[in-house]
């Protein structure tokens, strides 16, 4: 009944000479999850991912993959996991197809399959026209996508992607997001690290927040929302001046003190804290409408999680 977690760590710790990069981390990533791993610079994301990929020796603690402890000799681990580092280089004097061919050979794929797979993957990451280009001649973003293709070459169950979106243009980011969703839909377990929260909050099923090597939150995205963010934020644009808008919105049930965040010639945007689910939000809107407020926009403050995140980290800093 209890399906084993794709990845679980128990008191995973990594200590460099001075810094405690990862501090008794207990991470739980269920199978099929799209797991967002969030933390600021130096929080320990890369260190954790490298330990999961078997590229770094934990100081103490254990890693379990599919419920099995990563033992002393786990050659099979490499076939289960696809890893894309945050910073990586490419070999000189190599064509794009050769780059993928090299890694395909490393996994001992038969020649016929290799060729087919390379073409498919290049198609997937939108580099089909660069097949015969030199890898060094690719732009940073293209290299990024090529590296993602390389991580997929052996069809791994688990993907560890360290900031895959850094260096991508906005369109490519969206494409990357779609790609990850697609891969998740295929049943792969994906761990994505980032410091850009909204990017992850939207697509991830699970989220872990790490700060100074410690796990601050870990779980289902909804749960995290509820758990860490008692108050959601509602954003309302009213087609009046700001004083009138404040008056209209103030004292609506279930909503905190509104604050004006933007004023234009004929409208004012307010934000207010709000407790409750989407049902309650609909009630708030209905009440505003009955009060006669000329509502132009009614939305959830997009960066709520981010605010919590910021709040969390500043709290930690104090």
């Amino acid at each position, binding site marked *: 009944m209890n399906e084993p977690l794709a990845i679980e760590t128990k008191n995973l710790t990594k200590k460099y000479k001075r810094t405690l990069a990862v501090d008794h981390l207990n991470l739980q990533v269920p199978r099929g999850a799209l797991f967002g791993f969030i933390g600021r610079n130096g929080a320990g994301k890369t260190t954790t991912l*490298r330990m999961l*990929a*078997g*590229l*770094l*020796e934990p100081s103490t603690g254990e890693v379990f993959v599919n419920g099995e402890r990563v033992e*002393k*000799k786990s*050659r099979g681990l*490499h*076939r289960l*996991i696809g*890893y894309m*580092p945050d*910073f*990586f*280089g*490419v*070999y*000189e*004097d*190599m064509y794009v197809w*050769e780059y993928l061919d*090299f*890694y395909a*050979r*490393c*996994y*001992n794929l038969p020649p016929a399959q290799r060729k087919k797979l390379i073409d498919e993957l290049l198609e997937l990451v939108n580099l089909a026209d660069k097949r015969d280009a030199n890898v060094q001649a690719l732009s940073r973003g293209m290299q990024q996508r090529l*590296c993602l293709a*390389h991580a997929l070459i052996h069809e791994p169950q688990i993907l560890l992607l360290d900031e895959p979106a850094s260096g991508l243009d906005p369109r490519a980011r969206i494409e990357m997001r779609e790609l990850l969703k697609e891969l998740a839909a295929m049943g792969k377990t994906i761990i994505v690290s980032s410091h850009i929260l909204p990017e992850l909050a939207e697509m991830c099923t699970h989220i872990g927040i790490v700060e100074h090597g410690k796990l601050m939150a870990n779980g289902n995205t909804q749960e995290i929302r509820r758990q860490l963010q008692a108050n959601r934020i509602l954003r309302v644009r009213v087609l009046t001046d700001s004083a009138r808008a404040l008056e209209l919105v103030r004292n609506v049930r279930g909503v905190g003190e509104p604050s004006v965040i933007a004023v234009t010639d004929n409208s004012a945007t307010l934000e207010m804290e709000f407790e409750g689910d989407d049902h309650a939000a609909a009630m708030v809107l209905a009440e505003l409408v009955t009060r006669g407020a000329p509502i132009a926009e009614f939305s959830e403050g997009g960066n709520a999680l981010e605010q919590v995140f910021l709040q969390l980290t500043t709290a930690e800093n104090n």
Partner: protein
Amino acid sequence: MKLARPSLSLNPVLVKELRGRMRGPRAFLFLTGVLVLLGLVSYGLFQLALPRYYDRFGGGNNAAAGAQIGQTVFVGLVFLTLLLICAIAPSLTAGAISGEHQRKTYDLLMATPLAPFTILAGKLGAALSYVLLILLAAVPMTSLAYVFGGVTMEDLVKAFAVMGGLAIVFSVMGLFFSALFKRTGIAVGVSYLLLGLATLGSFFIYAVVGVMRGEQPPNWLLAVNPFSALASALVEGVVLDPNSVYSGSAMTPLLWGLAGGRFDNTTLPQIPLWQYTLALYASLTLLWLFLATQLIKPVRRFQFGRVGWLLIVLVIVGVIGALVAVFAPRFIPPLRAAWIWQNATQRNIVPNGTFLEPPDWNWQIAAVAAPTAKSETRAQTEWQRTTVLKGFVRVWNPTVDAATLTLTQPLNVPISEVAQVKLRLVLQIRNQASEVCGAAGDECPVMVQLRYTDVGGQAHTFTHGFYANGKPRPGIARACLTCEDRPQNQRVNMTNWITWESPDLYDARTPEETPRTFDSITVQFAGAAYDVLLARVNVLVREGRPLDFRSRFNATPRWSYTDALPYQILNFLNQFNMGGSSRRVPGGFIIQTGPAPFIAPPTAAPLPPFKTP
């Protein structure tokens, strides 16, 4: 569940590296460059060697001249190729692992299921493919030298085997440092530093030890030196054949200088240098490879599990056990005698018995005219060192009067537990005019006498003679009747080099007559109008206890500064503009007045006059 198929596929790292390295004109240009360099150098060597040997051998289609030229070009080429390999091999691998770190491709590579050894093997294979290009470029050139003669197929194979082996060693060294330091610059620096120490450093230490001790230093001091190893592998074949035509090129002294001095039968048996090198570098290479496989692992370095550790311990115990088994008997007194008995080889106890040095260095030369001579007739001697490893004396009497000349050397070598005693001579009778040999008509043109004292204090003399005349031909009276009358004398063909070895002298004795001291050895030349070349006079002893060589040779040190490499190099260069006194004599041999002996001949009391048995 699918079973993993046994993989027959190519090493991915090798494929990748070769694709990069062999792409474009780089490899082609490299090969062309090496070819041009080797071609120019061999042409230069040929031009240098041509006048020297052509003149010396009187020109024409002389096989000997061809051989000398061939050998000069071959040796020069082979050493240049080794130099190229030493210069290039470490740099090909010193960036192999560190480059992955610096290029930030290391994590990607380590995330693949490739075994560390597979990665190393791929990198090594790619580097060696470049080295192979150098060797390939050397093949046509050395084959040309082969066509000239003076080089055997064995030499060719040996040279390329040694160079290939050394290429592997230095590539693995680069690989190891690359894995250790993770910085290409440091790995390259340390690799070349070590290589410099192994070559120049070892020569320096060798020379210093030699000059300080005033004798030939142990040749294993040069075991780390790749050039010495190659030199020793190349001269090895030449030593064993005293009649070899091609043992005389100007390259030979250079080879000997590099190989840590010549081997002399009068010293303890020596293992050829390259065998030390082989053992040393083979184990070092395995160790480097093993350490590198551990160093490149991102995690769990030097963790092997129970079975792994057991294997490692077994290997270490095995190696130590083997070392103890091999070396312990030499140092544990009760076993030592048995070891010597086991390993005793024939040992020559006649210093300068190969005429490496001029005969007057330690042979006492006495020339006397026969009492019946009409004029003041003297036999003459000339000495020539055709090579450092082989010299010979020519003794000839140009007159028709009888004249005797003796070469005598006091031995005074006490021995015990003799297993075997043999006499060995290498000589050629080029002319023998007299029908009745010797002053008294009972001596051969060449006779050897070995005097010894037996355990009972009784003196003995062993005598053997050689003559060339006397072949029975119909209608012509047999010459040298007297020689033939004596069973201890032997007829040999005229103008042929012959190597004669006596039966075991010890076998023929009763126990009471067991030799205890070898007193002296004498070679006597007698008769009229004879002309003899003597290349070797050896008394070969196999015994059960080591001789005290050190004390015996104190009077005449075996090694001098002239054996040090710088001197050899000067010597070598000098040969190309020599104006020395050499002339050609019929029969293809060169008679050259030898250089003045570097060491004054020992003064010893004159021996009693030669007595006929």
